[in-house]
Protein backbone atom coordinates (compact mmCIF):
# COMPACT_ATOMS: atom_id res chain seq x y z
CA UNK A 1 0.00 0.00 0.00
CA UNK A 2 1.42 3.38 -0.98
CA UNK A 3 1.88 6.21 1.44
CA UNK A 4 -0.66 8.23 -0.50
CA UNK A 5 -3.24 5.49 -0.09
CA UNK A 6 -2.42 5.47 3.57
CA UNK A 7 -2.87 9.23 3.89
CA UNK A 8 -6.15 9.11 2.06
CA UNK A 9 -7.28 6.28 4.25
CA UNK A 10 -7.56 3.94 1.27
CA UNK A 11 -7.03 0.41 2.35
CA UNK A 12 -7.62 -2.78 0.54
CA UNK A 13 -10.63 -4.37 2.15
CA UNK A 14 -9.29 -7.86 2.74
CA UNK A 15 -12.32 -8.87 4.79
CA UNK A 16 -14.50 -8.40 1.71
CA UNK A 17 -12.25 -10.72 -0.27
CA UNK A 18 -12.40 -13.29 2.52
CA UNK A 19 -16.19 -13.09 2.47
CA UNK A 20 -16.38 -13.72 -1.26
CA UNK A 21 -13.97 -16.65 -1.09
CA UNK A 22 -15.93 -18.19 1.74
CA UNK A 23 -19.24 -17.80 -0.09
CA UNK A 24 -17.88 -19.77 -3.02
CA UNK A 25 -16.16 -22.52 -1.09
CA UNK A 26 -19.03 -23.08 1.32
CA UNK A 27 -21.51 -23.33 -1.54
CA UNK A 28 -19.31 -25.94 -3.18
CA UNK A 29 -18.83 -27.90 0.00
CA UNK A 30 -22.54 -27.91 0.69
CA UNK A 31 -23.15 -29.60 -2.66
CA UNK A 32 -20.73 -32.35 -1.77
CA UNK A 33 -22.01 -32.64 1.78
CA UNK A 34 -25.14 -34.57 0.86
CA UNK A 35 -23.38 -36.70 -1.70
CA UNK A 36 -23.51 -40.46 -1.21
CA UNK A 37 -20.34 -42.17 -0.01
CA UNK A 38 -19.82 -43.98 -3.28
CA UNK A 39 -19.69 -40.76 -5.28
CA UNK A 40 -15.89 -40.39 -5.38
CA UNK A 41 -15.44 -44.03 -6.41
CA UNK A 42 -18.14 -43.76 -9.06
CA UNK A 43 -16.57 -40.60 -10.36
CA UNK A 44 -13.17 -42.29 -10.54
CA UNK A 45 -14.56 -45.30 -12.41
CA UNK A 46 -16.37 -43.15 -14.97
CA UNK A 47 -13.27 -41.06 -15.51
CA UNK A 48 -11.16 -44.14 -16.11
CA UNK A 49 -13.58 -45.35 -18.75
CA UNK A 50 -13.65 -41.98 -20.47
CA UNK A 51 -9.86 -41.68 -20.25
CA UNK A 52 -9.53 -44.89 -22.27
CA UNK A 53 -10.90 -43.03 -25.26
CA UNK A 54 -10.16 -39.36 -24.72
CA UNK A 55 -7.25 -37.56 -23.11
CA UNK A 56 -8.78 -35.63 -20.23
CA UNK A 57 -7.47 -33.34 -17.59
CA UNK A 58 -8.64 -34.42 -14.14
CA UNK A 59 -8.42 -30.81 -12.94
CA UNK A 60 -11.27 -29.75 -15.19
CA UNK A 61 -13.87 -32.24 -14.10
CA UNK A 62 -16.98 -30.87 -12.42
CA UNK A 63 -19.24 -33.12 -10.47
CA UNK A 64 -22.59 -31.81 -9.48
CA UNK A 65 -25.27 -33.42 -7.42
CA UNK A 66 -28.69 -31.88 -7.34
CA UNK A 67 -32.11 -32.67 -6.11
CA UNK A 68 -34.98 -32.51 -8.52
CA UNK A 69 -38.15 -33.48 -6.78
CA UNK A 70 -37.84 -37.11 -5.81
CA UNK A 71 -34.75 -37.62 -7.93
CA UNK A 72 -31.10 -37.03 -7.38
CA UNK A 73 -29.39 -35.92 -10.53
CA UNK A 74 -25.71 -36.60 -10.83
CA UNK A 75 -23.96 -34.53 -13.44
CA UNK A 76 -20.45 -35.09 -14.59
CA UNK A 77 -19.08 -32.40 -16.85
CA UNK A 78 -15.94 -33.39 -18.67
CA UNK A 79 -14.47 -30.76 -20.96
CA UNK A 80 -12.75 -32.60 -23.80
CA UNK A 81 -9.23 -31.73 -24.88
CA UNK A 82 -8.57 -28.68 -27.07
CA UNK A 83 -8.64 -30.55 -30.36
CA UNK A 84 -12.18 -31.62 -29.57
CA UNK A 85 -13.05 -27.90 -29.54
CA UNK A 86 -14.16 -27.75 -25.96
CA UNK A 87 -17.19 -29.98 -26.26
CA UNK A 88 -18.54 -31.29 -23.05
CA UNK A 89 -19.66 -34.76 -22.17
CA UNK A 90 -22.61 -34.71 -19.90
CA UNK A 91 -23.43 -37.83 -17.96
CA UNK A 92 -26.67 -37.44 -16.16
CA UNK A 93 -27.97 -40.30 -14.10
CA UNK A 94 -31.18 -40.48 -12.27
CA UNK A 95 -31.42 -42.61 -9.21
CA UNK A 96 -34.17 -42.88 -6.71
Amino acid sequence: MSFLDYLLGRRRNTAEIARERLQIILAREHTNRNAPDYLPALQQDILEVVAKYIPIDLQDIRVNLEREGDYEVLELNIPLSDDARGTTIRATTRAR
Partner: protein
Amino acid sequence: MAKIIVVTSGKGGVGKTTTSASFGAGLALRGHKTVVVDFDIGLRNLDLIMGCERRVVYDFVNVINKDARLNQALVRDKRVEHLYMLPASQTRDKDVLTREGVDRVFHELQQELGFEYIVCDSPAGIEKGARMALYFADEAIVVTNPEIASVRDSDRILGILSANSRRAEEGMEPVKPYLLVTRYNPDRVEQGEMLSLETVKELLGIPLIGVIPESESVLNASNLGTPVILDEKSKAGVAYSDVVDRFLGENRPLRFISTERTSLLRRFFGG
Protein backbone atom coordinates in the same frame (compact mmCIF):
# COMPACT_ATOMS: atom_id res chain seq x y z
CA MET B 1 -33.40 -34.58 31.97
CA ALA B 2 -30.05 -32.81 31.81
CA LYS B 3 -29.13 -30.83 28.78
CA ILE B 4 -25.99 -31.87 26.96
CA ILE B 5 -24.13 -28.99 25.28
CA VAL B 6 -21.07 -29.48 23.12
CA VAL B 7 -18.57 -26.69 22.63
CA THR B 8 -17.09 -27.37 19.23
CA SER B 9 -15.36 -25.67 16.29
CA GLY B 10 -13.46 -27.97 13.98
CA LYS B 11 -10.51 -25.61 13.97
CA GLY B 12 -8.02 -25.75 16.81
CA GLY B 13 -7.14 -22.95 19.18
CA VAL B 14 -10.22 -20.81 18.62
CA GLY B 15 -11.37 -20.75 22.25
CA LYS B 16 -13.36 -23.93 22.95
CA THR B 17 -11.72 -24.69 26.29
CA THR B 18 -11.87 -21.05 27.37
CA THR B 19 -15.56 -21.06 26.47
CA SER B 20 -16.35 -24.41 28.11
CA ALA B 21 -14.82 -23.30 31.41
CA SER B 22 -16.58 -19.94 31.47
CA PHE B 23 -19.91 -21.21 30.18
CA GLY B 24 -19.94 -24.06 32.70
CA ALA B 25 -18.97 -21.72 35.53
CA GLY B 26 -21.67 -19.27 34.44
CA LEU B 27 -24.39 -21.91 34.56
CA ALA B 28 -23.22 -23.03 37.99
CA LEU B 29 -23.09 -19.43 39.26
CA ARG B 30 -26.75 -19.17 38.36
CA GLY B 31 -27.50 -22.16 40.53
CA HIS B 32 -27.49 -25.00 38.03
CA LYS B 33 -25.58 -28.16 38.87
CA THR B 34 -23.14 -28.34 35.98
CA VAL B 35 -20.29 -30.58 34.91
CA VAL B 36 -17.74 -29.68 32.26
CA VAL B 37 -16.35 -32.79 30.57
CA ASP B 38 -12.95 -32.70 28.87
CA PHE B 39 -13.13 -34.76 25.66
CA ASP B 40 -9.64 -33.82 24.56
CA ILE B 41 -8.15 -37.22 25.30
CA GLY B 42 -4.36 -37.12 25.47
CA LEU B 43 -4.29 -33.33 25.75
CA ARG B 44 -5.95 -32.60 29.05
CA ASN B 45 -6.11 -28.83 29.51
CA LEU B 46 -9.48 -27.95 30.94
CA ASP B 47 -8.11 -28.75 34.43
CA LEU B 48 -5.53 -25.97 34.04
CA ILE B 49 -7.99 -23.42 32.72
CA MET B 50 -10.34 -24.22 35.60
CA GLY B 51 -7.48 -24.24 38.09
CA CYS B 52 -8.00 -27.70 39.53
CA GLU B 53 -5.13 -29.64 37.96
CA ARG B 54 -3.67 -30.64 41.30
CA ARG B 55 -6.84 -32.29 42.42
CA VAL B 56 -7.19 -34.62 39.45
CA VAL B 57 -6.88 -38.22 40.58
CA TYR B 58 -8.93 -40.30 38.18
CA ASP B 59 -10.21 -39.37 34.77
CA PHE B 60 -12.98 -39.96 32.22
CA VAL B 61 -11.25 -43.03 30.77
CA ASN B 62 -10.77 -44.60 34.18
CA VAL B 63 -14.50 -44.29 34.71
CA ILE B 64 -15.33 -45.74 31.31
CA ASN B 65 -13.01 -48.67 31.94
CA LYS B 66 -14.54 -49.05 35.41
CA ASP B 67 -11.19 -48.54 37.09
CA ALA B 68 -12.76 -45.76 39.11
CA ARG B 69 -16.23 -44.64 40.10
CA LEU B 70 -17.63 -41.48 38.60
CA ASN B 71 -17.70 -39.86 42.04
CA GLN B 72 -14.00 -40.43 42.44
CA ALA B 73 -13.14 -38.85 39.11
CA LEU B 74 -15.33 -35.76 39.34
CA VAL B 75 -13.47 -32.70 40.61
CA ARG B 76 -15.57 -30.22 42.52
CA ASP B 77 -14.75 -26.56 41.99
CA LYS B 78 -13.42 -24.76 45.06
CA ARG B 79 -14.80 -21.33 44.18
CA VAL B 80 -18.05 -21.95 42.40
CA GLU B 81 -20.73 -24.01 44.04
CA HIS B 82 -22.56 -26.50 41.76
CA LEU B 83 -19.58 -26.66 39.37
CA TYR B 84 -17.75 -29.91 38.59
CA MET B 85 -15.17 -31.07 36.10
CA LEU B 86 -14.50 -34.46 34.60
CA PRO B 87 -10.89 -34.54 33.40
CA ALA B 88 -9.67 -36.13 30.19
CA SER B 89 -7.07 -38.83 30.47
CA GLN B 90 -3.49 -38.31 29.35
CA THR B 91 -3.40 -41.63 27.54
CA ARG B 92 -2.24 -41.62 23.97
CA ASP B 93 -4.83 -44.09 22.79
CA LYS B 94 -7.69 -42.02 21.41
CA ASP B 95 -10.00 -44.97 20.90
CA VAL B 96 -10.62 -45.49 24.56
CA LEU B 97 -13.88 -43.57 24.53
CA THR B 98 -16.72 -45.77 23.38
CA ARG B 99 -20.26 -44.67 22.72
CA GLU B 100 -21.58 -47.19 25.22
CA GLY B 101 -19.12 -45.96 27.82
CA VAL B 102 -19.89 -42.28 27.31
CA ASP B 103 -23.60 -43.01 27.27
CA ARG B 104 -23.35 -44.86 30.56
CA VAL B 105 -21.37 -42.04 32.21
CA PHE B 106 -23.78 -39.36 30.93
CA HIS B 107 -26.71 -41.40 32.14
CA GLU B 108 -25.21 -41.64 35.59
CA LEU B 109 -24.43 -37.91 35.65
CA GLN B 110 -28.05 -37.14 34.90
CA GLN B 111 -29.99 -39.84 36.70
CA GLU B 112 -27.94 -40.54 39.77
CA LEU B 113 -25.97 -37.39 40.38
CA GLY B 114 -28.67 -34.96 39.30
CA PHE B 115 -26.66 -32.76 36.96
CA GLU B 116 -28.70 -30.23 35.01
CA TYR B 117 -26.09 -29.38 32.40
CA ILE B 118 -23.30 -31.42 30.85
CA VAL B 119 -20.89 -29.20 28.91
CA CYS B 120 -18.59 -31.12 26.56
CA ASP B 121 -15.27 -29.49 25.66
CA SER B 122 -14.49 -30.92 22.22
CA PRO B 123 -11.02 -31.50 20.83
CA ALA B 124 -10.13 -29.82 17.55
CA GLY B 125 -10.60 -31.62 14.25
CA ILE B 126 -13.42 -33.61 12.74
CA GLU B 127 -12.11 -37.04 13.64
CA LYS B 128 -13.23 -39.53 16.21
CA GLY B 129 -12.64 -37.42 19.32
CA ALA B 130 -14.58 -34.43 18.03
CA ARG B 131 -17.35 -36.68 16.75
CA MET B 132 -17.63 -38.41 20.11
CA ALA B 133 -17.84 -35.07 21.92
CA LEU B 134 -20.77 -33.92 19.80
CA TYR B 135 -22.55 -37.24 19.39
CA PHE B 136 -24.82 -37.01 22.42
CA ALA B 137 -25.37 -33.26 22.27
CA ASP B 138 -28.77 -31.58 22.47
CA GLU B 139 -27.33 -28.17 21.68
CA ALA B 140 -24.03 -27.01 20.26
CA ILE B 141 -22.00 -23.87 20.78
CA VAL B 142 -20.00 -23.44 17.60
CA VAL B 143 -16.98 -21.34 18.52
CA THR B 144 -15.78 -19.36 15.54
CA ASN B 145 -13.05 -16.78 15.07
CA PRO B 146 -13.69 -14.08 12.46
CA GLU B 147 -11.17 -15.68 10.20
CA ILE B 148 -11.51 -17.58 6.95
CA ALA B 149 -10.33 -21.04 8.03
CA SER B 150 -12.32 -20.99 11.24
CA VAL B 151 -15.55 -20.14 9.42
CA ARG B 152 -15.05 -22.94 6.94
CA ASP B 153 -14.30 -25.46 9.69
CA SER B 154 -17.35 -24.35 11.67
CA ASP B 155 -19.42 -24.97 8.58
CA ARG B 156 -18.04 -28.51 8.34
CA ILE B 157 -18.82 -29.14 11.98
CA LEU B 158 -22.40 -27.98 11.36
CA GLY B 159 -22.64 -30.61 8.63
CA ILE B 160 -21.45 -33.29 11.04
CA LEU B 161 -23.85 -32.11 13.74
CA SER B 162 -26.78 -32.41 11.39
CA ALA B 163 -25.78 -35.78 9.96
CA ASN B 164 -23.77 -37.73 12.53
CA SER B 165 -25.12 -36.83 15.94
CA ARG B 166 -27.28 -39.19 17.93
CA ARG B 167 -30.25 -36.91 17.34
CA ALA B 168 -29.71 -37.17 13.59
CA GLU B 169 -29.19 -40.93 13.63
CA GLU B 170 -32.28 -41.55 15.72
CA GLY B 171 -34.43 -39.14 13.73
CA MET B 172 -35.07 -36.86 16.68
CA GLU B 173 -35.24 -33.06 16.66
CA PRO B 174 -31.91 -31.88 15.28
CA VAL B 175 -29.14 -30.56 17.52
CA LYS B 176 -29.67 -26.85 18.13
CA PRO B 177 -26.58 -24.94 17.04
CA TYR B 178 -25.53 -21.52 18.33
CA LEU B 179 -22.82 -19.33 16.90
CA LEU B 180 -20.30 -17.88 19.32
CA VAL B 181 -17.84 -15.50 17.70
CA THR B 182 -14.70 -15.15 19.80
CA ARG B 183 -11.52 -13.07 19.59
CA TYR B 184 -13.48 -10.34 17.87
CA ASN B 185 -11.71 -7.09 17.21
CA PRO B 186 -14.11 -4.30 16.20
CA ASP B 187 -11.24 -1.99 15.24
CA ARG B 188 -9.94 -4.39 12.64
CA VAL B 189 -13.47 -5.04 11.40
CA GLU B 190 -13.89 -1.32 10.88
CA GLN B 191 -10.60 -1.24 9.00
CA GLY B 192 -11.88 -3.93 6.66
CA GLU B 193 -9.27 -6.36 7.94
CA MET B 194 -11.49 -8.78 9.79
CA LEU B 195 -14.72 -10.52 8.85
CA SER B 196 -17.62 -8.75 10.50
CA LEU B 197 -20.06 -10.35 12.83
CA GLU B 198 -22.85 -9.97 10.27
CA THR B 199 -20.77 -11.71 7.62
CA VAL B 200 -19.89 -14.67 9.83
CA LYS B 201 -23.51 -14.99 10.87
CA GLU B 202 -24.76 -14.84 7.33
CA LEU B 203 -22.21 -17.37 6.07
CA LEU B 204 -22.96 -19.93 8.77
CA GLY B 205 -26.68 -19.26 8.98
CA ILE B 206 -27.23 -20.16 12.63
CA PRO B 207 -28.44 -17.98 15.52
CA LEU B 208 -25.83 -15.93 17.32
CA ILE B 209 -25.49 -16.45 21.05
CA GLY B 210 -22.72 -13.96 21.63
CA VAL B 211 -19.52 -12.21 20.73
CA ILE B 212 -16.40 -12.39 22.89
CA PRO B 213 -13.90 -9.63 22.18
CA GLU B 214 -10.21 -10.30 21.80
CA SER B 215 -9.05 -9.53 25.30
CA GLU B 216 -5.87 -9.66 27.33
CA SER B 217 -7.80 -10.77 30.36
CA VAL B 218 -8.24 -14.24 28.82
CA LEU B 219 -4.53 -15.00 29.05
CA ASN B 220 -4.35 -13.58 32.54
CA ALA B 221 -7.28 -15.70 33.61
CA SER B 222 -5.67 -18.83 32.22
CA ASN B 223 -2.42 -18.00 34.01
CA LEU B 224 -4.37 -17.91 37.24
CA GLY B 225 -6.55 -20.92 36.52
CA THR B 226 -9.71 -18.86 36.87
CA PRO B 227 -12.43 -19.04 34.21
CA VAL B 228 -12.49 -15.53 32.72
CA ILE B 229 -16.21 -15.20 33.46
CA LEU B 230 -15.25 -14.77 37.12
CA ASP B 231 -13.32 -11.62 36.17
CA GLU B 232 -16.19 -9.17 36.29
CA LYS B 233 -13.98 -6.29 35.25
CA SER B 234 -12.97 -7.83 31.95
CA LYS B 235 -14.90 -7.37 28.74
CA ALA B 236 -14.46 -11.02 27.86
CA GLY B 237 -15.81 -12.04 31.24
CA VAL B 238 -18.83 -9.78 30.93
CA ALA B 239 -19.44 -10.98 27.39
CA TYR B 240 -19.40 -14.60 28.59
CA SER B 241 -21.91 -13.70 31.32
CA ASP B 242 -24.20 -12.31 28.66
CA VAL B 243 -23.84 -15.55 26.68
CA VAL B 244 -24.96 -17.61 29.66
CA ASP B 245 -27.91 -15.30 30.30
CA ARG B 246 -29.00 -15.51 26.67
CA PHE B 247 -28.65 -19.27 26.76
CA LEU B 248 -31.00 -19.30 29.73
CA GLY B 249 -33.51 -17.21 27.82
CA GLU B 250 -32.71 -13.69 29.00
CA ASN B 251 -32.62 -10.81 26.59
CA ARG B 252 -29.14 -9.24 26.50
CA PRO B 253 -28.05 -6.78 23.83
CA LEU B 254 -24.66 -7.40 22.27
CA ARG B 255 -21.73 -5.46 23.70
CA PHE B 256 -18.20 -4.64 22.57
CA ILE B 257 -19.00 -5.04 18.90
CA SER B 258 -18.18 -1.56 17.69
CA THR B 259 -15.04 0.51 17.95
CA GLU B 260 -14.51 2.82 20.80
CA ARG B 261 -13.76 6.01 18.93
CA THR B 262 -10.05 5.79 18.44
CA SER B 263 -8.14 9.02 18.30
CA LEU B 264 -7.13 10.38 14.96
CA LEU B 265 -3.51 10.05 15.92
CA ARG B 266 -3.89 6.41 16.75
CA ARG B 267 -5.65 5.80 13.49
CA PHE B 268 -2.82 7.45 11.67
CA PHE B 269 0.06 5.71 13.32
CA GLY B 270 -1.44 2.73 14.89
CA GLY B 271 -2.23 -0.81 14.87
